[in-house]
């Protein structure tokens, strides 16, 4: 079967030809099947964030290709890829529109990758849908539709980001250390919510994390990135048996 997502021999070199030259991704190959929930770990500088930005289109590859359902996306700008790719940023401030209200944020998210026309962005029907979606979070946001997002805490904003990213269908969901800015309790809430939504919608997901326990606890496959390549690809029985201590040994 053809994999849904395929990265072929991707190289990313920053400042090519200068003394600051930095070869971040060195021939990275990656195949994801539909419905896989993959966690990615690696030490600082291994290329995790670069990998993410290559997928979203924010970083241009030096060479290599990126296929989704057999079509190459490598030439497309981030906003053109957004129809197929949803994402959640590490910094909750980046993924939401602070000075717009919660309902306005949701309305923008609802039309991800769609044509936006003269139609009113908000009406009774949409507000009802938004309330329903927010009620799932169980943190009281459904009663604050007209509050500006700037008034929310980091955890609330990240939970809202998750709803926003998954409102509209996507082929691939990207999460870039979604809990790095949250306290442990809120981190757990956001992650279990992620897990629930990913399972419900059967989303193909790639999540970068710094936490080895998170990497093993969530998803069904774990990639270890090292010096711009995939060093370990762990799944199935091997992954279930693996303890955090075993993972640590990979970093030595």
């Amino acid at each position, binding site marked *: 079967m053809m994999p849904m997502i395929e990265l072929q021999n991707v190289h990313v070199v920053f400042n090519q030809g200068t003394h600051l030259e930095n070869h971040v991704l060195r021939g990275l190959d990656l195949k994801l099947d539909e419905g896989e929930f993959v966690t990615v770990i690696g030490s600082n500088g291994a290329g995790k964030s670069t990998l993410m930005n290559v997928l979203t289109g924010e970083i241009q590859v030096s060479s290599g290709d990126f296929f989704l359902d057999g079509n190459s996306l490598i030439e497309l700008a981030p*906003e053109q890829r*957004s129809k197929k790719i949803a994402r959640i940023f590490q910094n909750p401030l980046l*993924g*939401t529109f602070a000075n*717009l209200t919660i309902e306005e944020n949701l309305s923008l998210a609802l039309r991800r990758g769609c044509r936006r026309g003269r139609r009113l*962005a908000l009406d009774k029907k949409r507000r009802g849908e938004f309330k329903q979606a927010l009620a799932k979070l169980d943190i009281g946001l459904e009663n604050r539709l007209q509050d500006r997002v700037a008034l929310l805490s980091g955890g609330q904003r990240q939970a809202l980001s998750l709803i926003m990213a998954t409102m509209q269908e996507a082929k691939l969901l990207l999460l870039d250390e979604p809990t790095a800015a949250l306290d442990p309790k809120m981190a757990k809430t956001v992650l279990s919510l992620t897990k629930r939504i990913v399972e419900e919608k059967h989303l193909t997901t790639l999540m970068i994390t710094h936490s080895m326990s998170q990497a093993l606890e969530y998803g069904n496959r774990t990639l270890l990135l090292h010096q711009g390549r995939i060093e370990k690809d762990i799944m199935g029985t091997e992954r279930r048996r693996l303890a955090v201590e075993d993972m640590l040994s990979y970093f030595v």
Partner: protein
Amino acid sequence: MNSLQLLGALELGLIYALVALGVYITFRIVDFADLTVDGSFPLGAAVAATLLVKGYHPVLATLCATAAGSLAGSLTAYLHTQWNILALLSGILVMISMYSINLRIMDRPNITLLNETTLFNNTSVVWFLALIVSLVLIGLTRFFSSEFGLAMRGAGENAQASAAFGISVAKMKLVALALSNALVALAGSLFAQSQSFADISMGNGTVIGGLAAVIVGETLLRPKHIAGRLLVCIVGSIVYRLAVVFALNIPDIGLRASDLNLITASLVAVTLLLAKRRKKGLS
């Protein structure tokens, strides 16, 4: 201050309310410091005046002026988004070239419209202006409540998130600048028709005047809804013009009409400084 001066201030306030709305769209909504405005205001006046002198219908002349303004705005956006020229510089380039273009259009530095038929021939100027400004307010409110308009507000708020949700920030800036400069050129054409002249230098300080109106409005009121925010620009513009007439009428402080630009610039600078202080105090 007599009633004639008051009426004059109200007229100017309503005309410059359109400039304030245009400036609000660029500076506040899409976060683009657009100086094209100083060129598109006289452009609107030049196009309208030239067409009126040639005997065209005032409505047609006004519409052509508005369209010309949107072209000027699009040009600035094009320089910025396609060629990566700094926003300020793109605006200045178009503004400077407008000086030559406006002279070409008018074929002389000023045109009088005293003997021409204008939009205001058979109506009360203030009421007709109030009608136009109200229609613009209603139109803009509807626009910014639409999916497209909301996306434009999002693009100014957070470029990265916009891209993640499929909004092209470059496209939004282009539409915003076209819309903004269309409004400013409309104001220019209304100014020419109500004051019965067009002059090559009438655009000087337009952007600062518009910004002052926005800032005065925001100091008075900060409503949540977009309709309220747009309305505040109009209120700010009228209050600002009334304050100017009032200040010029205070005896013994020796202000002259030509001091206006200095006073306006100081007002804008002080308000921005105070806003910054206040922000620092909070954090």
